[in-house]
């Protein structure tokens, strides 16, 4: 039955948003993981979403797919901290290019989108259950 596709669609949305939440958690957890080598420092990760259109005979399905995780190409932040055991010859350490404020906003957006999909799922489930009781 066609209504069961909603479970697939909303499920793919929930899975994509949880991948996004995972990358936010990873970025926030590593926001202060400094390194002595600018090429070896943690870089902010962001998922890339893509809509998956249904086959030509199937017009309405458009699931979400996470096609990959992109790493931010922004330069790492240089901090002068000679006392740090990881500091290089100039006394510098390199902090990840994670923008904490941006990550927090991203987290709220992901959580709201996840809730949206849960709401769609709940409504569709109620509708299906009501349809099952038709004629009783």
């Amino acid at each position: 039955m066609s209504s069961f596709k909603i479970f697939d669609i909303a499920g793919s949305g929930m899975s994509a948003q949880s991948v996004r939440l995972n990358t936010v958690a990873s970025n926030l957890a590593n926001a202060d993981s400094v390194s002595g080598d600018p090429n070896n420092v943690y870089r902010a990760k962001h998922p890339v979403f893509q809509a998956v259109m249904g086959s030509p005979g199937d017009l309405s399905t458009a699931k979400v797919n996470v096609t990959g995780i992109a790493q931010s190409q922004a330069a790492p932040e240089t901090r002068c901290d000679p006392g740090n055991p990881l500091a290089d010859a100039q006394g510098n350490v390199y902090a990840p290019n994670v923008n904490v404020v941006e990550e927090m906003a991203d987290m709220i957006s992901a959580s709201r989108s996840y809730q949206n999909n849960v709401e769609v799922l709940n409504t569709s489930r109620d509708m299906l259950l009501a349809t099952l009781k038709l004629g009783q």
Partner: protein
Amino acid sequence: MRTSLDSYLGIHPQALSLEAQRNELLAANLANVDTPNYKARDIDFQSALATASGNSAAAPSSALPLSPSNSAAQSGTSAAAATGGSGNGSAIDAASLKYRVPMAPSLGGKTVDEQLEQSAFAENSVRYQATLTLLNSALRNLMTAITGS
């Protein structure tokens, strides 16, 4: 006297199936609310129902503006075209499936407005419940007529 069950139930079975499919479309729009370049899609419910019930004279009227082509909705970007037949028993064909005209352009090229889609989804589920109630009472009437009690 012969009464066909189809004519007894009237337009409601078609309406129910159409509402279920519209809910699917709106769920897809809501799932893709963060997908760049995604073009929101919807059906013009009035005209789709008129087509499904064999009365295509009704004028299309929709609360939300819809465009028949993706390019009119937003130019310069590409998305999968809404092509395909209605051979799978679906009441929605390529002609009635349309793209949402965005109220404001967005940076990522997507035309999904979360609040609009949410309210359309809520409205459509209420429609579905209403159709279900009408169908239910029609069937109950029939049962009363059969059992006579």
